């Protein structure tokens, strides 16, 4: 039984990585995660809700994030996610891997 893999993404695992990275900023609910990813990418990356929630379930199952219920800014019940120690480790591995892959791609494409 391997870790659950994302189904379709830019590169496999990218959405997971982005979610983990955004969660470095603290406890966030699903909507905020989607918003942040959009804002930080200057509206370039639109997270589809259809893949966000499966991704969150997957990350939680793998023990990389933990969800808990809290109150949102306008006092509504929302589920906040936070990064776990395992998640931090996984993020470090993933970003290193991603850097390598994008670097390689960039070299092939002649960007670098």
């Amino acid at each position, binding site marked *: 039984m391997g870790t659950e893999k994302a189904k379709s993404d830019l590169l496999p695992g990218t959405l997971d990585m982005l979610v983990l990275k955004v969660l470095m900023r603290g406890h966030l609910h699903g909507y905020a995660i989607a918003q942040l990813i959009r804002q930080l990418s200057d509206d370039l990356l639109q997270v589809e809700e259809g893949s966000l929630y*499966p991704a969150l*379930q997957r990350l939680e199952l793998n023990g990389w994030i933990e969800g808990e219920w809290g109150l*949102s800014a306008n006092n*509504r019940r929302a589920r906040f996610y936070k990064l776990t120690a395992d998640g931090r480790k996984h993020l470090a591995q993933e970003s290193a891997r991603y850097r390598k892959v994008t670097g390689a791609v960039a070299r092939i494409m002649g960007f670098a």
Partner: protein
Amino acid sequence: MQDSTRWRRVRRRLRYWRSRSERNRLLWEEMEFHIDSMTEELVAQGMAEREARAAAYRRFGNMTQTSEDARSTWIARWISDLVQDLRQSFRGMRRDAGFTVFTVLIAGLGIGASSTVFSVVNAMLLRPLPFRDPGRLVFISNGDQNTAIQTEHYSDLREMNRSFSDLAAWSGFYFPGDKELTGAGEPERLTSVPVTGNLFSVLGVQPAIGRSFTAQECQGKYSAPPAMLLSYGFWQRRFASDPRVVGRTLTLNNRPVTMVGVLPASFDFASVFAPGIPVDVFVPWPLNDPNKPSGNTLKVVGRLKPGATVQGAEAELTVLAKHLEQQHPERNPIGPRLMPLAERVSGRVVPPLFVLACAVGVVMLIVCANLSNLQLARLSGRQKEIAMRAALGAGRSRLLRQMLTESVALSSCGAVLGLVLAVVGTRELAHLQAFNLPLLESIRIDGKALLFTLLTAVGSGVLFGIAPAWRVSTLSFSEELQDASRGSSGGRRHAWVRNSLVVSELAFACILLVGAGLLIRSFLRVLEVNPGFQPERAAALRIDPSFRTSGFAQQNSFIDNVLHRARSAPGILAAGITDMLPLRDDRSWAVPAAGKVYEKGHAPEAYIRVVSDGYFEAAGIPLRQGRDFTERDRATSDKVVVVNETMARTLWPGEDPLGKMIRTDGGRRVIGVVADVRHTALEAAGGLEAYLPMRQTGDYAAMQLVARTALPPDTLARELRTALRPVDPNLPVREFQSFQDLVDKAVSPRRFLVMLLTGFAAFALILASLGIYAVISFSVSQRVQEIGIRMALGASAIDLQSGIVLRTLGLAAAGLGLGMAAARALSSVVGSMLFGVTTGDPVTFIAIGTLLTVVAAVAGYIPAWRASRIDPMIALRSN
């Protein structure tokens, strides 16, 4: 490290799975919060609340899909599908309660029968014998499969052979109740088996308590064994499982015998070697006692050395036997015949078990055909539902899987019922003590039988679900949805599937019925056999005197006394004494006629019975010639013998046997000829018999008082007990055997087979008739409109009925034709079990054909009759 994270994930998955409905609700709440937030943002950008919400929902996409995707991370998809299908199935089962009950009942009966038969096969053939390394145990007989080996030959073979690590033996010369237990508690007759001291170690059986026999104990006297081992059953019954009895002394036949040990419960000598005759104790067989029974007395088993084969060992023993015969011309001839012990024990039950296994397999096929047909019929009522599901996006493979899940769920419910039936069935079988079948007591549902039941459930579920499932996946959906009428074309297009299922059901039922019919006819023929005696109203009571008779005078006065008192008891028509009961005990001697020369070892052999006057009358054996024994045939008078017709014919063909002499037992003169009695089995002719007068010999092992009575057996026992009390107050009178019981026991294996097979055949017949009925009434219900029109146009009820009945008979004819041909081809399977009928017995075939035709006609007539009562106006208006 890697493992621990994996393990944590598995645990988390399980936790999520347990709280799945709660988690699902929370997931929806989370997604709704998301949509609310999006809506708020859009409103903030100036959109109207309603539009904003709609836009948010649009952006979010299919929430159900998302939630399912999200969920599928913690529940493997196929599990959730399975659960869904199962839920659907159970919902369907509740809706169609009648169908469900019927299906579960039929599947349950079928699976119950299969598991029971499997347990029987498992106990008798598959499970190894309850000994250590039973594969290397070999049974050694002499010349044919039943003849025993002389003690001297046994000892020499044991010394000289190199193929076996050891040989051991027990005496075939023991009879039920031949030891009398007196002293402690109520006197009782025990069955004891004399065994060589090493029998238990050769078989690999350790006494549960105490020890086996010592070499010294095996050197004693046959008439006074110094030690004995108790069977577990006897120890439980007589001593309430008290372990302190080991070492104590009991009185057997007025001699003290020490109980040295108790054998384990797993060692059931009787059920392996002598089914139907429970053994109480084991005593040592004194190899060197000159006064032990002589002749071919020992049944021998050997344990092959590693690497030795049965063939090799037989070759070696044959050479040794030749050598022994030359060296010892005074001994009996010997020709060792070897057979793996397992084959010896259960070999004779292989053919009937094979028949039973085939029969139950055929029953299962009929069950599956029947259920398949039912499912198909039910499907036509559910076409709309299925088409709807397909239109809503259920894929074909998904529908196929759902149908299969449904049928497997049904058959599994049936299996639960079947298992209950099988547990009850095996328990009943294991307690059938009247049946002398080997290892019967060890029949039970074990792990293997459970596994078999599970496989049968799944297998039959798939088998009966495959046709409906296939049908579902090939439905033309748009057509079904458009087609508003009931008599949809799909139903008719697939009528041939249902028809062929019914035809095959009938054919299978026909095969079973013919098989059962042949065996029933054989059974009746066997019951018709004249056993040579009249079992009705005759019974035997063991009456050996508890004191030792020290001479002919004492013995004969005991006999006189017993007979006198028994004959004067009320209700007794005739009484006599014998040492052997027909169909149970036997021993044989060579009986050369005086004045004739026989090749060595080729003198005719006769069964020897030692009887008193009055025995022939009491047992109902007719006297053909000469005279019966009288009280005057005593030790001092002329030595005489009565022979049976076969013996008279064999020894003195074409001559008058009266007055002729035989050389046996010091020479005896023939004074009478009686009718033949069947000894070994009702199916086999008896062979030669010689009756010696009891007052002229002491060479017998038992005294059975046989009485012919006008009283019911219970009363007879009481009367005889009262009558005999003055003769010997210690007389144990527990063992009371009616002659009818002897006959019943002799035919019990056959009755066992006939009973089961008849049950299966009856079940098959019911299923097949239900199958016909279902198909015909279904086709009638589909043709209601057509029938309405016909009737409106003037067709008479008779026309309609005969049309439908003819169609039924058409199906029946096809099934019968196939079934009869197959039955004729397969009937040789039961050939070896038939008696008095041939495999092509026309009576059976015609009777079964008629039976099936009548049943089919009735099954078809009921829907036909209902069809003819259809009101044409209602039928035409209904659509």
